[in-house]
């Protein structure tokens, strides 16, 4: 999934990686990849994790992990960071999700009845990034569908998802169904249909 997601990154683009699965995308990028990773706490040009002993407590990403800077990185305040995000200056956001609907609706911040963990920058990124790609498991741990006809979990943003990458393949929201862009090796359309809560073709 992470490798496939990495293919969505155009050369020279500005990309924000959400917490969880999307973080793994950074791990599969070559060290000199032609991409500028943005972190919404005020960092553009995020590099790999530091070597042990070189952690800087005042240099973290939005997941609060210690990180490094690549040459050409910049730091700035949160107002500028979200101006960058909301104003369409982030080319691509890659996020995890709990539910996605064929109309592009995204739910990824809160489970009904679950503990409140807060929304962080997810709603701003979902509303503001030029393109939003979701990377997630095709189904929840309990087997329930995550690609659904209509999101039943609290929404993050309306009509924003461009593409979904799961272990079964690549899917694009197409208003009333999910369009199958690619199937993972060995996966059949029948299997996808059985494990998806909305029409797929």
């Amino acid at each position: 999934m992470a490798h496939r997601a990495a293919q969505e990154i155009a050369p020279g683009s500005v990309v924000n990686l959400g917490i969880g699965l999307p973080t793994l995308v950074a791990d599969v990028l070559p060290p000199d990849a032609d991409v500028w990773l943005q972190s919404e706490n005020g960092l553009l040009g995020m590099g790999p994790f530091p070597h042990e002993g070189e952690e800087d407590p005042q240099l973290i990403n939005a997941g609060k992990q210690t990180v490094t800077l690549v040459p050409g990185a910049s730091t700035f305040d949160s107002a500028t960071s979200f101006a960058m995000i909301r104003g369409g200056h982030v080319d691509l956001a890659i996020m995890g999700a709990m539910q996605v609907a064929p109309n592009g609706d995204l739910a990824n911040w809160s489970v009904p009845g679950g503990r409140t963990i807060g929304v962080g920058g997810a709603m701003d990124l979902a509303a503001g990034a030029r393109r939003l790609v979701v990377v997630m498991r095709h189904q929840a741990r309990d087997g329930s569908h995550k690609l659904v006809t209509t999101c039943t979990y609290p929404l993050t943003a309306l009509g924003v998802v461009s593409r979904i990458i799961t272990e079964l393949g690549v899917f694009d929201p197409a208003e009333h169904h999910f369009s199958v862009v690619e199937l993972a090796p060995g996966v059949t359309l029948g299997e996808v249909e059985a494990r998806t809560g909305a029409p797929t073709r």
Partner: protein
Amino acid sequence: MARTTKEVGSVVEALKDLEDGACIMVSGFGLSGNPEALIEGVLAGGKRGLTLISNNAGSIGEGLATWLRAGIVARVICSYVGNNEDLQRAMDDGTVEVQITPQGTFVERMRAAGAGIPAFYTPTGVGTLMAKGKETRIFDGRSFLLEHALHADFALIRAHRADPFGNVRFYRTSQNFAPAMASAARITVVEAEEVVDLGDIDADDVHLPGAFVQRVVHVPEHRDLIEIRTTRSAGT
């Protein structure tokens, strides 16, 4: 004629007129870049019924979570709760009223307050729970929410370097919410690792001009806890 200095001799003096029920903004992202001495100073000051405006309101029992543990906070405005067990508990108990705001809206509301903008429209949160009770308006065919300026009595911020006028430099990702908070509060207190002379920060290198700062206190040492220590394996 000597210039008036904003530097005060102690944290106690910097917080002298902070009262019960005050609304306080505190910069930092989790435990990173916290104004640690000022956070401790408020706790030691014993004032209660505080409104705390901070992105995370502390974490793992440290930083602002000590305010929650001490029961001096009545209300929190934040964007993220996450692993802040004290905030979770306070929410569950109902002892603290918590308002969760998208992070970009959170900072833009403070920036607006500091810039004399009473309200603005944002695409963030349209059609979500965040839109509840808020005006929705269409511009050029797209829907936006009306959000209001967020003011405070105090802003407590952490700086790398400050001068006696209150000009500030930040270090790395510690800048985060500090400039917006400084602009939005009636009294902004800077906790500076270094205090330098006027002119030691070049005019083009000032991150936050002194007009946004009321007090500076020199605090050379910080714990600077690392919440999530991530490293790469040797050789990569």
